[in-house]
């Protein structure tokens, strides 16, 4: 075991990984189940000479991140469901400003206050939300503590590659569980690395730096339109990430991400021993949705099963589009209860026997 390998909570591993990849700015507000990120940053940033600010609300959290990012820092903010709703304004402004930033949603159950239990009910908020306007934001969905740490590094890389915010959608279960994790090596981020950061307009510089969120006076909507469309098209083409497990010959293919996908993976293993041809598509990005993962599905497949901790079954629409509505979609849907592998297998048997009902 090398000394980068430790046992940590998902939320703390996320925070430490951020520090190690050069994040030196965090601003956020307490909300369960993500508060460990704020708490961890509150002592850890002091050790590395960074800034951790407990802000007056989530709006301040994300709008401070906008300023810090404009100034060149690797900046992070985090929240959970109700607080993530408040961050929508800032996400739209980050998109408009072409600024990189990483925004974490450690999802909890519910509309309104809901509760602090794990859930996957923020899928639509994260994939179809992101504030007003033509906003589309890469969203990574870790399923383990290790993947949480890995995705922090990836999130900052993608954010800077596209000069665009990136969301990590975790949940209460992954955020709170402790697992072994190999953390990235410690490195610093140079705030002068990029030429677009505001730093004061030096006389020799031909162009001053404007971090612009308004279209007023630009007069070139068509130019902006194509820049943003090209960015989105490139993201859709190049940034789909997924893990397929035994999909090529599967008669039932599960689609599940995050905590549900861990149970689904177990179900595939057990089902295969029983001779049931079960497979799993595990999106690691839900934006862009990994439609390429569905190419591996064979003509023997009888149906798709979404396994999701959502009352609505929020994955359904993206799966329908990815399969071009060619396969029936069944659902094992819960709300705050982590799915059960035996129930997955039971539903798979019902699907194969023609006894299951499609999700509405």
């Amino acid at each position, binding site marked *: 075991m090398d000394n980068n390998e430790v046992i940590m909570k998902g939320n703390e591993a996320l925070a430490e990984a951020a520090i190690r990849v050069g994040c*030196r*700015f965090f*601003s956020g507000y307490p909300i369960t189940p993500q508060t460990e990120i704020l708490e961890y940053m509150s002592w850890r940033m002091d050790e590395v000479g960074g*800034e951790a*600010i407990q*802000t*007056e*609300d989530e*709006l*301040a959290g994300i*709008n*401070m*991140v*906008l*300023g*810090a*990012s*404009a*100034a*060149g*820092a690797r*900046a992070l903010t985090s929240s959970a469901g109700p607080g993530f709703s408040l961050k929508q*304004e*800032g996400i739209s*402004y980050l998109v408009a*400003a072409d600024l990189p930033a990483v925004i974490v949603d450690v999802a909890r159950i519910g509309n309104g206050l809901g509760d602090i239990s794990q859930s996957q009910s923020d899928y639509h908020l994260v994939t179809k939300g992101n504030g007003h306007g033509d906003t589309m934001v890469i969203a990574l969905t870790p399923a383990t503590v290790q993947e949480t740490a890995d995705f922090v590094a990836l999130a900052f890389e993608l954010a800077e590659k596209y000069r665009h915010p990136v969301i990590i959608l975790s949940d209460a279960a992954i955020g709170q569980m402790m697992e072994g994790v190999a953390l990235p090596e410690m490195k610093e981020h140079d*705030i002068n690395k990029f030429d677009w950061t*505001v*730093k*004061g*307009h*030096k*006389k020799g510089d031909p162009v*001053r*730096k*404007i*971090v*612009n*969120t*308004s279209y*007023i*006076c630009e007069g070139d909507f068509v130019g902006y339109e194509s820049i943003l469309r090209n960015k989105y098209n490139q993201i859709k083409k190049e940034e789909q990430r997924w893990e397929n497990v035994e999909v090529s010959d599967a008669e039932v293919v599960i689609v599940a991400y995050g905590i549900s996908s861990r149970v689904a993976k177990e179900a595939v293993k057990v089902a295969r021993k029983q001779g049931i041809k079960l497979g799993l598509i595990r999106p690691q990005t839900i934006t862009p949705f990994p439609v390429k993962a569905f190419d591996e599905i064979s003509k023997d497949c009888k149906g798709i099963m979404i396994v999701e901790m959502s009352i609505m079954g929020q994955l359904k629409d993206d799966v329908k589009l990815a399969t071009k509505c060619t396969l029936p979609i069944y659902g094992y849907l819960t709300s705050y209860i982590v799915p059960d592998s035996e129930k997955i297998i039971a539903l798979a048997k019902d699907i194969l026997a023609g006894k299951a009902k499609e999700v509405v």
Partner: protein
Amino acid sequence: MGIKAPELLMSSPGGFCPGCGHGIIGRLAFEVITEMGLDEEVITVVDVACGSLFEFMTDSDVVSAAHGRPIITAAGVKRVRKNNPVIAYIGDGAAYSIGISHTIWSAIRNENITAIVVNNGVFGMTGGQMAPTTLIGQKTTSSPYGKSQEKAGEPIDVVKLLGKIDVAYLARGSVDSVANINKTKQYIKKAIEKQMNKEGFTFVEVLSPCPTNWNLSPIDSLKRIKDVVSKQFEVGEFVERSAK
């Protein structure tokens, strides 16, 4: 005597209405920056609406923040670039209505930035609606019978709001006369000096005319500031804390 605008304001023509105070106030800020030798260091954070026109009028690096958020966004910039002067240039709607929590909390945390807040008593860009600083009885497009204290509360006075908080500097100037313009420039200068001295949150409100939305001529607008507005909002220096 030759009069020359600071180089930081030479990049493009402004778009302010005739008689507007923004042009004077922005000029004062950038004159101070130039006189202090900070042209190449300053970072300006603007709001939406009228004040946002400085995004394209100044030659400084600029961040355009969301409505009501420039103070907090400026604090984010400053915490990363601690040696650069960072100015949040905003209106009274941003500072006292939608962004009031950021104004108060930046003061409480003593964020080391300078906020320049233009108080013209209305939401100018959207057509003259009632602002937190609209005076009782003042007619606006959203208080057509005159602002009612019963319905809308008393006008927000930043001295009452922040006066008891241990900020580095709090002053209110006005552009209604040459004397007051000169005083306002001194207030802004002191604020930026204190910021460069890392003393903390510095805040200068400036009473400013909006002839378009006050339905007055530019001259009468200045007269209204002198005779009416500055009776409600006293000008002067209110908090000044020396370096710790």
